[in-house]
């Protein structure tokens, strides 16, 4: 629904379709007949937020409950924000068009650190006090979940409740508690204390932090009976977990505009840089029957003619061929194409290729992540050069002429030799093309290298590692550029400035709340976008607050230092991460979960890959 004030400005902004709602399958309820109004906020644009699977799952799940009305809210783009501020239009929800100022819950999903400024900016635009302590009444409870909640501390002053782990159960338990507390006329404090007793709930206000003189954490102490360790929540039985039968179908084009089925959660691989690979352990698969049913239902209900099988590494699904065969019993005749993102270099088999005929010929992307075998062993990527060559040759022989290769720069133990290795590997792929007998006639090959700067993340074996400073990263980028001698190789690199700020917030503590508060006062937003991001402006704030960002990003931490996120328990033990880190420095790999259990700790959940028959 479009409210009257918004209607007048819609034709003055780009893509007004972002702000109007009214899409197929969006849920409209009568606000007088619900007890809880939930504003599900994605701190980025409509096109990005609407592509996010987690939001689709929770939106449908919440709205299945008759007493909850969950609505979607996105960050208005710069032009819209300017007009909203100018005309005093508070941030509104798409379904009702109502301002979210007095909603019961304001929920954020935290997908990347650089969206933190948007979280606060959205609260500000909604006329909601940004600090938890300034919101005294039992109303507009600000909650947050998602991967970045694994180090919630930089947002501790602003968020009332963090959901740790997967949200399907814990979110509803907290909403139900709120509804009870509201009925019983309880205060916000009472509600928060009760909520802290629910497994998977973190209430930052109930913890006190003391620091050592050197700025590291001295103690982290719960109050009011709040738990010392907070265990993540997760869904163990994926076949019987809630999955939506319907997606809201956007009227304007979004980033991922297709039906999606999650084929499993977690990843068996254990790449040491990858946070998702540790946070979502153990691997839990859905059965072929469940996936097939979900895909078919979704396509029927949305009209999408493309379905994507989502996971961290699709070719690791135990019966991927059986799955694709089953899907093709209807997909082909109903003109639905299947896409398989996140294919590993060693998972690109002829069988799979044959089943997904619709893979677009425009480009293939693989992620070797590091240029030399030694460094790939350090990060436990477990991809061998011959595997990459074989895969590329398969692709070239079936008509592809463009390959994209993703790498990281600034990985632990990296030398300039490893950096040069990236260029050499790309050169070998170019050479491979000319050795292929069935390569497309008369066409040249293009290999595109993209490098991102490595950002050490919590709950990975590299959580203690000090990031390369920006000068080093840029020097390595230039060195790689100089090593490339052919025009058949293109090189793109990711700006090191954003990676630095990401590293600061990824492993930050509560002291950073002051930085974010200032950033909000100064109107920072959309820091994930080059249109807005300026590291210099951020550094100014750090300077004003007397906080050294290098302390968080660049410092090598001791194994016995109390890390800001140590009180959270994602199933993987700190001891395991430490052993993995030590192995990394000895260039030693760890076999994946299906080859051998490495005792990470996730088997205590009693299911998933840990108990598969081998």
């Amino acid at each position, binding site marked *: 629904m479009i409210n009257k004030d918004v209607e007048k400005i819609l034709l003055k902004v780009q893509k007004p379709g972002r702000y109007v709602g*009214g899409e197929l399958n969006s849920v409209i309820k009568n606000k007088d007949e619900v007890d809880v109004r939930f504003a599900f906020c994605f701190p980025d644009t409509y096109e990005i937020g609407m592509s996010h699977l987690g939001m689709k799952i929770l939106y449908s799940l919440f709205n299945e409950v008759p007493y909850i009305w969950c609505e979607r809210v996105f960050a208005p783009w710069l032009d819209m924000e300017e007009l909203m501020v100018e005309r005093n239009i508070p941030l509104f929800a798409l379904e009702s068009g109502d301002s979210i100022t007095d909603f019961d819950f304001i929920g954020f999903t935290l997908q990347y650190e650089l969206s933190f400024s948007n979280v606060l900016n959205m609260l500000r635009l909604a006329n909601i006090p940004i600090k938890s302590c300034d919101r005294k009444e039992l109303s507009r409870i600000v909650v947050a979940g998602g991967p970045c909640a694994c180090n919630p501390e930089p947002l501790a002053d602003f968020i009332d409740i963090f959901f740790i782990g997967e949200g399907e159960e814990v979110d509803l338990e907290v909403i139900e508690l709120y509804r009870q507390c509201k009925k019983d006329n309880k205060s916000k404090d009472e509600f928060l204390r009760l909520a802290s007793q629910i497994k998977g709930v973190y209430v930052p206000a109930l913890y006190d932090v003391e620091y050592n003189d050197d700025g590291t954490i001295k103690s982290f102490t719960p109050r009011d009976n709040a738990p010392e360790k907070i265990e993540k929540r997760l869904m163990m039985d994926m076949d019987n977990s809630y999955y939506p039968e319907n997606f809201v179908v956007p009227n304007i084009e979004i980033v991922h505009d297709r039906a999606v089925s999650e084929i499993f959660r977690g990843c068996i691989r254990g790449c040491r840089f990858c946070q998702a690979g540790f946070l979502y352990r153990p691997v839990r698969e859905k059965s072929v029957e469940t996936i097939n049913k979900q895909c078919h239902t979704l396509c029927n*209900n*949305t009209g999408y003619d493309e379905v994507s099988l989502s996971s961290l590494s699709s070719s690791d699904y135990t019966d991927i061929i059986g799955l694709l065969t089953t899907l093709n019993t209807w997909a082909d005749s109903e003109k639905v194409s299947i896409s398989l993102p996140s294919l590993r270099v060693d998972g690109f088999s002829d069988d799979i290729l044959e089943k997904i005929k619709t893979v677009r010929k425009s480009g293939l992307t693989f992620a070797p992540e590091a240029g030399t075998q030694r460094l790939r062993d350090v990060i436990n990527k477990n991809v061998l050069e011959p595997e990459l060559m074989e895969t590329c040759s398969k692709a070239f022989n079936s008509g592809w002429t463009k390959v994209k290769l993703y790498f990281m720069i600034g990985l632990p133990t990296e030398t300039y030799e490893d950096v040069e290795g990236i260029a050499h590997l790309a050169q070998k792929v170019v050479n491979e093309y000319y050795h292929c007998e069935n390569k497309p006639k008369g066409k040249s090959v293009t290999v595109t290298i993209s490098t991102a700067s490595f950002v050490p993340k919590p709950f990975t074996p590299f959580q203690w590692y000090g990031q390369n400073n920006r000068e080093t990263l840029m020097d390595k980028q230039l060195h790689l550029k100089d090593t490339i001698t052919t025009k058949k190789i293109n090189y793109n690199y990711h700006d090191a400035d954003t990676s630095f700020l990401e590293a600061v917030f990824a492993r930050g503590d509560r002291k950073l709340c002051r930085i974010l508060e200032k950033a909000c006062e100064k109107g920072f937003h959309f820091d994930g976008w080059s249109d807005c991001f300026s590291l210099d402006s951020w550094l100014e704030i750090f300077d004003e607050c007397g906080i050294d960002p290098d302390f968080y990003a660049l410092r090598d931490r001791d194994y016995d230092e109390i890390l800001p996120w140590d009180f959270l328990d994602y199933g993987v033990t700190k001891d395991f991460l430490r052993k993995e880190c030590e192995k990394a420095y000895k260039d030693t790999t760890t076999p994946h979960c299906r080859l051998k259990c490495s005792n990470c700790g996730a088997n205590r959940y009693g299911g998933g890959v840990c108990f598969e028959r081998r």
Partner: protein
Amino acid sequence: MKDVRVWFTKDDECRFISHLDLNRCMLRALHKSRIPIWHTEGFNVHPYATFPLPLSLGFRGEKECMDIRLVEDYSYSDIKDKLNSCLPTGIRVYDVREPVMKAKEIAFASFKIKLSCEDISADELFKLTNELLSKDEILVDKKTKKKGVREIDIKPYFSDTKTERNIGGVIIRCTLPAGSVTNINPLLLQKAFEKYYDIDVYFDVTKKELFDKKMKAFE
């Protein structure tokens, strides 16, 4: 193979779907409805649908149409019901018929426009509207695809325009050239308000009807 013309309204939230997005939205609804329509046979196979006269972003449309091609006989009322169940509520199919005229015969479109302005009273706005429309010439900049920006006199096109003072504000009704040869967007008048009186007038535009060059209703 049989050509059919699907008639629909476009209003509410769906006013803000651009023409390109409307096209995708319709294709998705056609796919979902499983109506047996003809698919293009090119590299990227998709259901075939064309729109005789695209509607500008933000306008309401009371008589919009889309041409599709059936590969087998199919009940027209089923097409209507199925498409409606697959489309967002802001787009409603109200009729499905065989096309009588060709798309290129469209020559005029009629509009009803509600004018409102926050800076002046409705009476003043009414006065200004009449004053503007009675000028000898109304010169505004018009963007063209080929020649860039060009100044044109829109007075001749708005000579038959009727104005009306009503409870909420001012309503004007006009019929303007539309179609493949000449197109005059009613929002050019909004620009004239800005240029001549330096006021921001909100135009709530509804496209009412299409005509051929003899002013016969497009069918």
